[in-house]
């Protein structure tokens, strides 16, 4: 099948598969020059915009002064990290970030699994396809649009949903949901459910389509009804997919999603809205504390790597296949 395991024959290649004399670096480059040439722009991209910033992380250990540059700025060790950990913001940032992550894992993460299972049980094909087409749409809309929709629906004076909630509670006061600390997290989670759930079903639906029909046959022979089949055949079959998705999600635990949070932050809900992502922007770009905010970003990045490897290790310990 995989015929490209062997290189294409060229005039220079000898018939026998033995190592030819004179296969130096230069010969290799000469032979594959077109492929390497095609690779070059991409490599430049990754070097410039991915690896150069990784090197730039060193300024977290400096008091970075732009006119002195990366090499000239004085090294200060872990000063900025100490400042972060000892500072008044750290506890609040950690709590806000982790609380949102917890809500995400408990509510937003399982939602596509449930919807995929329901879609899978839907036997009217036209309906199934229509529902799918519609629930995919929000994935393609920007967070600014989602924030605008939230505003339109929840605005204190003319919002549709805020009006309904008011009627339902028999309350006459107009609540400004965007400004209320208590409403920040529910709104964030609602937005994520609306935007992410439909698209998230794709991968689970594919896994469900791959389940061997013979397993269902066998279950039926043993007298399993639909619910028993769901529990004993379908769910175990997609468990590996769920585990992989969970590992991937765990790497993003500290990534609250800059755009969404930033767009929903107002001067009145900052105490619950500040997360690591927005804090890096705020302290680095608007306040100009470049080294300090790089240190915050680096802390977040390293913690994310530890989380992803940790959960992968855990998944393997629990007898799952894991990612690596």
């Amino acid at each position: 099948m995989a015929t490209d395991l062997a290189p294409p024959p060229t005039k220079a290649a000898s018939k026998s598969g033995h190592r030819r004399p004179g296969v130096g670096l230069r010969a290799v480059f000469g032979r594959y020059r077109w492929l390497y040439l095609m690779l070059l722009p991409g490599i430049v991209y990754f070097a410039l915009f991915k690896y150069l910033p990784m090197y730039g992380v060193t300024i977290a250990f400096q008091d970075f002064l732009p006119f002195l540059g990366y090499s000239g700025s004085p090294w200060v060790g872990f000063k900025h990290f100490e400042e972060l950990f000892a500072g008044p913001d750290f506890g609040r940032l950690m709590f806000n970030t982790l609380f949102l992550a917890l809500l995400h894992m408990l509510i937003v993460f399982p939602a596509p699994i449930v919807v995929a299972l329901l879609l899978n049980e839907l036997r009217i094909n036209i309906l199934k396809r229509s529902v799918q087409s519609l629930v995919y749409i929000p994935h393609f809309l920007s967070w600014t649009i989602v924030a605008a929709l939230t505003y339109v629906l929840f605005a204190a004076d003319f919002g549709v949903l805020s009006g309904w909630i008011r009627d339902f509670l028999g309350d006459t006061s107009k609540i400004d949901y965007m400004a209320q600390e208590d409403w920040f997290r529910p709104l964030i989670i609602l937005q994520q459910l609306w935007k992410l759930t439909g698209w998230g079903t794709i991968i689970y639906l594919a896994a469900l389509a791959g389940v061997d029909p013979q397993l269902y046959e066998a279950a039926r022979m043993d007298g399993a009804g639909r619910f028993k089949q769901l529990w004993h055949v379908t769910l175990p079959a997609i468990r590996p997919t769920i585990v992989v998705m969970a590992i991937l999600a765990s790497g993003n635990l500290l990534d609250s999603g800059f755009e969404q949070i930033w767009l929903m932050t107002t001067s009145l809900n900052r105490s619950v809205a500040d997360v690591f992502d927005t804090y890096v922007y705020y302290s680095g770009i608007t306040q100009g504390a470049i080294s300090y905010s790089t240190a915050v970003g680096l802390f977040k990045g390293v913690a994310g790597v530890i989380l992803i490897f940790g959960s992968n290790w855990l998944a393997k310990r629990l007898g799952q296949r894991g990612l690596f």
Partner: protein
Amino acid sequence: MKTMKHKKLNTEYSTVGSRVFDAINVAVLVGLALITVLPLLYVLAGSFAGESEISTRPFFLWPEKFVTESYEYIFATDAFIRALLTTVIVTAVGTVVQVLLTFTMAYPLAKRYLPGRALVLNLIIFTLVFTGGMIPTYLVVRDLGLLDSYWALILPLAINPFYLIIVKSFFQELPQALEEAARIDGCNEMGVFFKIVLPLSKPIIATFSLFYAVGIWNDYMSPLLYITDPNKWTLQILVRQLVSTDAANALSQMDRTWVPPEQGLKFAVVVIATLPILFFYPFLQKHFTKGVLIGGVKE
């Protein structure tokens, strides 16, 4: 055999519990679909409604009186026209750059015999796990002199590593015989790529063009970070300005004698920023699930 299976299925699905479940399932899923689209339809209806209707009627999918003042106001402002034009051009140019770079890089990476391929792949996968973060990336963009340049909205996002890996997996599945035939006819790798491989990849090119285009069109963070000149604002920034601050301020260069429709403006700008995506969506929908799953499931 087939009829037997059918009979079994029918008896199984005709139990009371099973039927109740089916009914609830249909209701839940239709409800979900409605929750997805109703807000969008409401905004569309609201964008054609008058100010008083928006503030007095709680929910409607058809305006009582059909008015276009919100759109007239928006299209009469320089700030909006400029933002729209900027976003269209940046999206078009950016998508071409991104697709070209992604596909040319994915092709050699699909060749298992290429020396050094594993190293490059591992370096790419590492960027999925660890990144320099916002500030060091910002400094690179600044040092390259890209601040306040539209290239800052394109180049830092030129290759999405996830897409790259999916396209690479797709190339690996292509039949090799075709490429070999072309090589015998005297094509070099570059010729094979442009004459044979790319034409075969049209559906997946369409898919990733859509993904990339949507990404740039919707990008709010890059213009927020890299664009400080209000004359270079993109549509997403303008949407944000219109919704969060009072609308008249955001389109400040306006004719002050005309009272802007405060709420209607918000509805209209959401519609305009959403419309292109919803317009292309049906054409590409048949492709993207396949596009996402190639590689994705197998990995």
